[in-house]
């Protein structure tokens, strides 16, 4: 079947199977390997991308379901420079091995779109679908706070 999606601002027309997953389209058809496959059972959140602005697990969405949608991956988040969430993750040392980081950053972006000034409870709940086995989450939460204030500052 043929699908048409917009990925990181660029229109893509692709031939896929019914069973092809969105994450397979991103990684294998388009070479966007920044989106990771961790558990492949929709637990870990490493494959999180934005579909029409909303964070979803791309290992549990069929490519066909994304037909007509606008997809943003980690590669397309910042454009020419790093996105404020990426900057905050770097400055707060919110990663160690980095495997979960692309999914984490996409979830944080989705969270901040909904709650620009999140409480700690909203941050923790917003990241409930993303697992990190290195950091213990403390620096990730600090990065979310920093990104929120940086984005509030740039919007003002």
């Amino acid at each position, binding site marked *: 079947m043929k699908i048409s999606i917009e990925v990181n601002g660029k229109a893509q027309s692709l031939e896929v*199977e019914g069973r092809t997953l969105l994450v397979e389209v991103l990684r294998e058809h388009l070479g966007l390997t920044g989106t990771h496959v961790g558990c492949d059972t929709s637990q870990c959140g490493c494959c*999180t991308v934005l579909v029409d602005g909303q964070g979803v697990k791309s290992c549990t969405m069929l490519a*066909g379901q994304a037909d007509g949608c606008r997809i943003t991956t980690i590669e397309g988040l910042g454009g020419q420079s790093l996105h404020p969430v990426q900057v905050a993750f770097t400055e707060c040392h919110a990663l160690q091995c980095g495997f979960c980081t692309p999914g984490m950053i996409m*979830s944080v972006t989705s969270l901040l779109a909904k709650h620009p000034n999140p409480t700690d409870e909203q941050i923790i709940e917003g990241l409930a679908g993303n697992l990190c086995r290195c950091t213990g989450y403390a620096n990730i939460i600090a990065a979310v706070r920093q990104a929120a204030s940086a984005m509030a500052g740039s919007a003002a």
Partner: protein
Amino acid sequence: MHAFEYRRAASLNDAVGTLATDGDARPLAGGMTLIPSLKHRLNQVSQLIDIGGLADLQGISVQADHLWIGAAMRHQQVADSAEVARAAPGLAQLAGLIGDPQVRARGTIGGSVANNDPAADYPAAVLALDAVVVTERRELAAADFFQGFFMTALEPGELITGIRFKLPRRSAYAKFKHPASGYAMAGVFAADLGAAGLRVTVTGAGGGVFRWTAAEQAWAGGSSVPTLEHPDLLEDIHAPARYRAHLAKVMCEQALRQLA
């Protein structure tokens, strides 16, 4: 995954017709359970007919005596709905406790109810709020709809179009989440239906959702919540039956405390 065809349904009739003519076709809405089960090859289909975008299955509205939620409404839409929060706050609360944000963005109420996972959240609300499950061909009372472990009264190819909930005077949900899956280890929904009485339902603890009449009587009489006794308590790697029975009592106390 084994190979299958994927197609978006053009209409409810199109979906029902496809399911009637192809016994190996299945409806797909959010896919939060169906896609993982296909990936594990626990399930094999000839085609998936996507009903998630059908206009007939959308919408939330409060009528004089009920709350209507279309089958394709996503968990996050129910959690964020001002109408649901006003009409049945326990239901909005429950929807916001399902899975995680990414799952809530995709999963649908109709899919969850049709799947009837013994640890799913929605069945507790559907039974406690004495809801009617509406399909394209008939209406089913909640008490008749849920038939235990992943079983429902749905016939092959029958599609839920929406759920009609009674409007409670008060309602609350308390859930102990399994920390990895987000499913209920025990979840208790308490609803005061006014003239229709008090209802307490339990999910996650047994082989399927059930009413907990001893807790309903205790609530009505103002006495303390008893320990759960039920013939069909789940016993697995996560917890023995006795633990779940205790957890149900604690969740019931938490739900009732919210209503006090």
